């Protein structure tokens, strides 16, 4: 697909111009990175799809022995992990990468090089995950890696370690991408495009990126703890030493439930672009669709325990989470009406894109309704870990998100390639996909109700089970064939497809105001923004409203650092929570009172707090354009920070001398993890400050233009603030 984009002459990577063949590796253009994302996810989609087909073959008949239980466990683990982290999330990010800058009339993302980094972290994270197959076996503990199964006592291969490392690598990339997206949308909108006028896809991606920034740290923190358990023999989730395996479930679903919305909100955005264009009407209730998305995103952090009804959290928990889970269905459910009422009375053009969108609406309703049944705790107890669950989330993620992505692909492919995907092949693919998808998963509802457990490699020959499973397997192969047909359609249309022109669908958002594919710089001239449909307003100036002033446009470097700090804050929140949770009752072995010297710690704490003051003085000197005090205060900051690190090092040394290590007990595990990660952040801060200092001494700050000092100053204040919290939780009560 790359051949169709304009050859690059990139301002960020001038070498890309000469390199030719290497240019698609060196590119920092958001459009080419978007396509890289989509091609990569399509490849992993095929990998995950083949894994699914092997599972379906194994389950086609009762008591089958095509693959054994061990391989089957690896298959479903890899299938789930691949589809979630390497297909659905990055494909949505890929679409966002390509279209968000175009839709807001920007030249590129806010940080093009960071954008490229996000992509490459994804690719290598994916390769790392699959490398586990060569390193003694893929992970086999399910995509949520429940402890204690994923602890080294029960998973002795390196599979879970690769799973953790791959997810960490991808997690860092995803958070970086989300920060980039937030800053892009906040700071690079075309003049006059207020946050209330952005296309719904952009709005959804914005909210989605906020969700990623808040939710991914929860995953990162939990898998870091699991990694410490596995590699350093710590006790976060090992019951034998007092750890709580249930805590893993809480931590995982703190991330896992928002993740469900991370995988579906951008799809809502695509549907909200496709449905109005092919119904020739503006979206019904823009404010509701946009506002309720915020509510859904925030509520999604408060309902995770409904994944754990079967754990036995207690009657009170079940009651509250049943209620809140039903509540979150309301704003989602009303969106269905928004889309239907958008179509109502419109002059509908049933293109392949709209057909996929309509199928999305219907199938998402099925998935949503089966989801609500799970909110009723007793039904959940009956249905959990059966094929009913499998059917439910495939209706949401495949019947929902993937169909929406198909709608988006058929809608936007002309913009990306300059050619329209064949409608004839497209409709054939649509019907095959609908039949294949529903054939595969509809029957699984019944299998689940009949009690067939998921994640079991085979099943007994009970009445009806064999037939229903065979239907499901046949459906899966039809589905696989439809995906091949999509590949053929893409290949054929890239060569022979109808030329698209700038705006083949007569759509109205900004991406259609430029050529297809867009030039390197995206726009020659961004049209004036009067409302939510700039191209419509351009064609109908008599109904266009007066333009408004851009509402809110913060500085991009500072914004990105603030968003990053929020994300880091959530990471520390998890570690702090683990410390409090494991230390509010007395446990055998060393604890804070018996092993820590709070007065000594207070000394180097003062040093760290003083460094916040000195860096503020340095910033003030920077603002007043006085070079010498700026340098001196910065040196003082570095010295004070170093004193803190030395103090912490001597504290660690003292503990280790007395035989207290991370594996001693839960206090030591949580103490070393929390303070260690803080120390790591101080070290990173010191490195950054030293780089700034060197740049200052080299004369880079002569004109007082670079903003690095202020940005890193923010980070430094954050590190200090975290320490104040850590100190008051661990040490303060020892002083009183």
């Amino acid at each position, binding site marked *: 697909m790359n051949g169709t984009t304009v050859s690059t002459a990139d*301002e960020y990577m001038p070498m890309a111009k000469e390199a030719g063949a290497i240019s698609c590796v060196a590119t920092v253009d958001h459009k080419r990175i978007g396509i890289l994302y989509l091609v990569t996810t399509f490849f992993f989609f095929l990998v995950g799809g083949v894994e699914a087909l092997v599972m379906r073959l194994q389950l086609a008949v009762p008591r089958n022995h095509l693959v054994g239980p061990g391989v089957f466990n690896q298959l479903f683990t890899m299938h789930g992990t691949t589809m979630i982290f390497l297909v659905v999330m990055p494909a949505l990010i890929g679409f966002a990468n390509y279209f968000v800058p175009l839709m807001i*009339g*920007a*030249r*590129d*993302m*806010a940080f*093009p090089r960071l954008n490229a980094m996000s992509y490459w972290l994804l690719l290598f994270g994916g390769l790392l995950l699959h490398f586990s197959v060569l390193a003694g076996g893929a992970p086999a503990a399910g995509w949520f890696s429940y402890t204690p199964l994923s602890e080294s006592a029960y998973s002795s291969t390196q599979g879970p370690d690769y799973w953790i490392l791959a997810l960490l690598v991808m997690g860092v990339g995803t958070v970086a991408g989300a920060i980039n997206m937030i800053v892009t949308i906040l700071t*690079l909108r*075309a*003049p*006059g495009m*207020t*946050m*209330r*006028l952005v296309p719904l896809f952009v709005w959804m991606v914005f909210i989605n990126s906020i969700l990623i920034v808040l939710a991914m740290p929860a995953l990162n923190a939990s898998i870091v703890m699991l990694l410490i358990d596995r590699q350093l023999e710590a006790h976060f989730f090992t019951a034998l030493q007092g750890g709580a395996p249930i805590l893993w479930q*809480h931590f995982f679903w703190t991330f896992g439930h928002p993740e469900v919305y991370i995988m579906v909100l951008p799809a809502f955005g695509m549907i909200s672009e496709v449905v109005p264009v092919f119904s020739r009407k503006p979206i019904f209730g*823009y*404010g509701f669709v*946009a*506002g*309720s998305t*915020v*509510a859904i995103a*925030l*509520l999604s*952090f*408060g309902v995770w325990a409904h994944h754990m009804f079967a754990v036995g959290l*207690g*009657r*009170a*928990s079940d*009651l*509250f*989470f049943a*209620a*809140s889970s039903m*509540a979150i269905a309301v704003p989602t459910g009303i969106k269905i009406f928004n889309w239907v009422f958008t179509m109502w009375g419109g002059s509908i053009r049933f293109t392949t894109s709209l057909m996929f969108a309509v199928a999305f609406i219907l199938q998402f309703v099925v998935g949503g309704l089966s989801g609500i049944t799970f909110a009723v705790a007793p039904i959940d107890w009956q249905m959990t870990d059966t094929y009913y669950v499998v059917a439910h989330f495939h209706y949401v993620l495949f019947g929902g998100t993937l169909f929406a992505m198909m709608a988006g692909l058929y809608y936007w492919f002309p913009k990306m390639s300059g050619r329209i995907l064949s409608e004839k092949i497209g409709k054939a693919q649509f019907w095959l996909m609908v039949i294949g998808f529903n054939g595969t998963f509809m029957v699984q509802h019944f299998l689940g109700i009949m009690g067939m457990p998921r994640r079991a490699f085979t099943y007994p020959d009970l009445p009806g089970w064999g037939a229903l499973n065979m239907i499901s397997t046949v459906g899966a192969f039809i589905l696989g064939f439809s995906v091949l047909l999509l590949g053929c359609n893409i290949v054929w249309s890239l060569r022979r497809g109808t030329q698209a022109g700038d705006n083949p669908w007569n759509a109205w958002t900004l991406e259609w105001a430029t050529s297809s594919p867009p030039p390197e*710089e*995206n*726009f*020659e*001239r*961004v*049209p*004036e923004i009067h*409302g939510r449909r700039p191209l419509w307003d351009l064609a109908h100036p008599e109904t266009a*409203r*007066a*333009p*408004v*002033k*851009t509402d*809110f446009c913060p500085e991009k470097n500072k914004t990105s650092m603030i968003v990053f700090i929020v994300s880091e804050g959530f990471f520390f*929140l998890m570690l702090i*929570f683990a410390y*409090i*949770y494991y230390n*509010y*009752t007395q446990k055998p072995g060393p604890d804070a009172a018996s092993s820590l010297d709070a007065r000594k710690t207070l000394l180097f704490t003062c040093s760290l707090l003083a460094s916040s003051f000195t860096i503020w003085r340095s910033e003030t000197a920077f603002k007043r354009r006085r070079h010498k005090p700026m340098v001196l205060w910065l040196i003082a900051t570095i010295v004070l920070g170093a004193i803190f690190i030395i103090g912490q090092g001597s504290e660690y040394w003292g503990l280790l001398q007395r035989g207290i290590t991370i594996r001693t007990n839960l206090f030591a595990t949580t103490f070393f993890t929390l303070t260690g990660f803080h120390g790591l952040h101080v070290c990173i801060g010191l490195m950054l400050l030293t780089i700034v200092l060197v740049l200052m001494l080299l004369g880079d700050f002569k004109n007082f233009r670079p903003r690095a000092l202020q940005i890193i100053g923010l980070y430094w204040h954050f590190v200090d603030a975290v320490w104040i919290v850590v100190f008051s939780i661990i040490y303060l009560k020892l002083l009183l």
Partner: protein
Amino acid sequence: MTTQQFLLSAWGWNPVVIGVCVAAVATYGFRYRRQNGYFLAAIVLFYLTLASPVGALANGYLFSAHMLQHLLLLLVVPALALLGLPELKKDSGVRVPPLAGWLGGLSAMWIWHERTLCNAATTTTSVRVIQIISLIALGLMFWWPVIGPQTERRLPPLLGVVYLFSSCVGCTILGILITFAPVGVVCPVYLHPVDRLGILPLLRENWGFTPAFDQQAGGLMMWVPACGIYISGVIALLARWYRAGETSVAAPEPEPVFPPPRTTRGNA
């Protein structure tokens, strides 16, 4: 005692509470011409929180009832009272910095659930009075930057969303800790209530409020419905934002307020 007898008999007629309520309503009635129902609702709710059976249960019997009272006094009563106030000019009245409001709202939750304070507020009347006053005052402080009467000084809507959501995170964490703490760690006084009204068997057996269930329900109340209150605030802010947006876009501006569009947009 049966449930019905309890619900009918457990009403408090504390003259001080009644006096405060009457005084508040009277002051409001005399002071402001333009009135709405919100302020009256706030006072009625305030009275119900303290004097209804919920108040009786919170007074030493049930931690969950205490939590309900805590949330109503901190989050609902002050919000309704502020909504009842007429709009103020920018320069008149007090100014609450958002950070102070945020910290005030959150610290009220965290500090009053420290073990000694939580116990003292249940057993000692003077501490209890301080608690009630501080909850109302801190609640007013918390809501002031978001829905305070100085409309021009309110936080911009999107920052208001951040303000409310971050508070929701703060109270969620406390709620989770209370829910999963060992029974009686948070507020031990509710473990073995002095049965003044003779309703303990009713609560423990008929209603099923064992100490474990009671503490869990209390923690969950702070975790789930409390966030519901914040999220309702978020929804209200967004609704107001979108409504305001539509009118301001529709109103024709006297002259173009921004330079003509640039041809390309730099991003360095």
